[in-house]
């Protein structure tokens, strides 16, 4: 047991709840902001900033009269457990005891494990719903996940080699002391591979193949409604923000305050959006082929690059 006492654990848990709340609200807000930016490109005004919150409330107040079995109910729960679990082991604000969560207790691999735990749980739940589009959506989502995993995992391995640690806190600590120490400068190859993987992770065009309203409306969440959907929406905001925080920690030097965190994550998100508004959607085989080609190659190169950094 790494905690000295129950008290410390409790205070940790309290702080984590606060972090969770802030990150979720920030995720919902940034979601609305991104929607408005996309709308601007399309010549529209877009949704009000409060819209994601109202949507979640409305869905929560909606009635449910469907039963698809126990796994169907558990799907969104697994999903949000994955989201919370991911956040729990990421130091949100570096050097701040309050907002570094349980990062001392877990390492990078645990975080990555939690990232996929949610997806798999969701897959089970959506599969239980029995809708054929859900099944196709899951098949697409999981195969795309497998594909973007490869460059991302290679990039992470490269970073692990570079910093010789699995602890996220230590990785962030190694990047402190000015922008020239950030991974994006010191190991730009790995960053490039990971940013390409991020395009797939965020699920905007051209990699929104698992939702794809024109093809399989709307993939895994087809049957989810009312409170389940509001759980999924909450998780979407939370998980989206968490992924960005993870990327920020790994490649962009972490954050020492909430302001820095918001600016950095927003800018990382913008990369996916700029690609997203301009491109149509890939077909699933094309998406997989895309990830297995150049991003994977860059990922392999990043490992070699990290080795060179060590030996140099």
């Amino acid at each position: 047991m790494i905690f000295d006492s129950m008290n410390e654990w409790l205070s940790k848990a309290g702080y984590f709840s606060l972090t969770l709340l802030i990150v979720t609200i920030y995720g919902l807000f940034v979601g609305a902001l991104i929607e408005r930016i996309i709308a601007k490109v399309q010549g529209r005004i877009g949704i009000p900033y409060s819209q994601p919150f109202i949507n979640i409330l409305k869905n929560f107040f909606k009635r449910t009269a469907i039963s698809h079995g126990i796994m169907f109910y558990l799907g969104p729960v697994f999903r949000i457990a994955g989201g919370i679990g991911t956040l729990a082991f990421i130091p949100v604000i570096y050097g701040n005891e309050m907002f570094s969560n349980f990062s001392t207790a877990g390492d990078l691999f645990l975080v990555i494990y939690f990232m996929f735990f949610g997806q798999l749980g969701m897959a089970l739940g959506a599969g239980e719903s029995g809708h054929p589009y859900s099944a196709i959506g899951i098949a697409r989502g999981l195969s795309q996940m497998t594909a973007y995993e490869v460059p991302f995992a290679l990039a992470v391995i490269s970073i692990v080699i570079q910093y010789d640690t699995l602890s996220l806190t230590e990785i962030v600590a190694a990047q402190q002391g000015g922008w020239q120490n950030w991974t994006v400068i010191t190991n730009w190859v790995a960053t490039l591979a990971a940013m390409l993987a991020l395009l797939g992770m965020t699920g905007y065009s051209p990699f929104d193949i698992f939702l794809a309203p024109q093809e399989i409306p709307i993939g895994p969440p087809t049957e989810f409604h009312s409170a389940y959907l509001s759980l999924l929406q909450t998780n979407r905001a939370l998980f989206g923000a968490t992924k960005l925080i993870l990327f920020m920690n790994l490649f962009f030097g972490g954050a020492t305050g909430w302001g820095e965190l918001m600016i950095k994550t927003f800018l990382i998100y913008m990369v996916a959006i700029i690609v997203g508004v301009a491109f149509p959607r890939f077909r699933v085989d094309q998406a997989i082929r895309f990830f297995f080609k150049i991003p994977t190659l860059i990922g392999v190169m990043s490992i070699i690059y990290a080795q060179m950094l060590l030996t140099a």
Partner: protein
Amino acid sequence: MKLPFGRTTSSPISTGHSASLDFAQPEPVDLASGKYVKLWQGPQHPGITGNMSLELTLDGDTIIDCKTHVGYLHRGFEKLMERRSFIQNFTVVCRIAVPEPTFNEYLYSHAVEEISGIEIPERATWLRTMNLEMMRLASFLMWIGGQGGAFGQYTVANWTLAYRDYVLDLFEEMTGARIYHMYIVPGGVRAGLPDGFEGRAREIMDGAEKLLDQIERVMFNNTVFKARSKGLAIIPPEMIDPYGIVGPNARACGVKRDLRKDEPYLAYDQLDFDIVTGTDSDAYERAYLRLQETRQCISLIRQCLDRMPMDGAFQADMPNVLHWKVPAGETYVKAECTRGEYGYYMVTDGSELVRRVHVRGPSYTHAIAVMERLAVGNNIADIAGMMVSLHTYPPEIER
């Protein structure tokens, strides 16, 4: 690739003119085996153009059988027209094809005029030509947006649909209505142009041209769009005649047929344009061909504005419509709409009511026979794009 129905995916259709079409009934698929999935795409599906549905049988992601189901919009127009007088019919016909009502109005009026021998004034000819071309422009703008949207490029869809609205504004100015104009009446048109229309129309045409240039950059030069649409749903030239494929779908494989040029109607013989043709006959080629035709529309509207007589009668002297009897006769009139040959077949028997009207829409063959053929062997992801690429409107199939 060998498919369980004895069909092959890549081999071109084996139908020459002398050979008969292969209509071997496919072997029934054992759905209980769990290997195949039967999937209904539509009518409640965002990827379906209008209100129709496809019954797909899937083997993994690959479609091994496709059946089109139509009739969700069947209103029995042909029956309704048999019990309405000639002037009452003119308000009904425009509702047959929602996105392009003008072609129905024109063809109905033209058929009536042809049977009863009414000559329309020259100004009405020009106004009709311009109205049809504006309709074509609006329809193509919506189509480009639809093709972008079908592949997930919502930016283009938003741009073109918003711009289509400006063209609808022009319609509103010219005819008083956005969607159902009821502008072209038997004997001419309902009104001339309002003051200052020409300037505003030219302004909107300039804007449309700029928009099309942008769309060419964003959509047609886009790698992903190319990856999705190139090689998708290729219509081989041997399929054109046996399947009755017309319009841009046929022109995209090099068939130089355009009713506006081949059998000029209205003022098209005085307008300066060329038939646009393509070579590859895939979804990309068809889309690009339609983009060029949209540009052509803009040029034609400008030419109409240049050459149109600005005053004079816009309606021929008509008999009292309450007593209007059309002599017995039979005719088939057709016009080139955005999807190809649109036709009205009319039989009259000298009474106040029409005996029989048959409306021939190009989607009749594109959405059913052609779609069912092309879908087989494709990925389910491409169905929406393929369907939009064939440019089908269900209301003109079932009427």
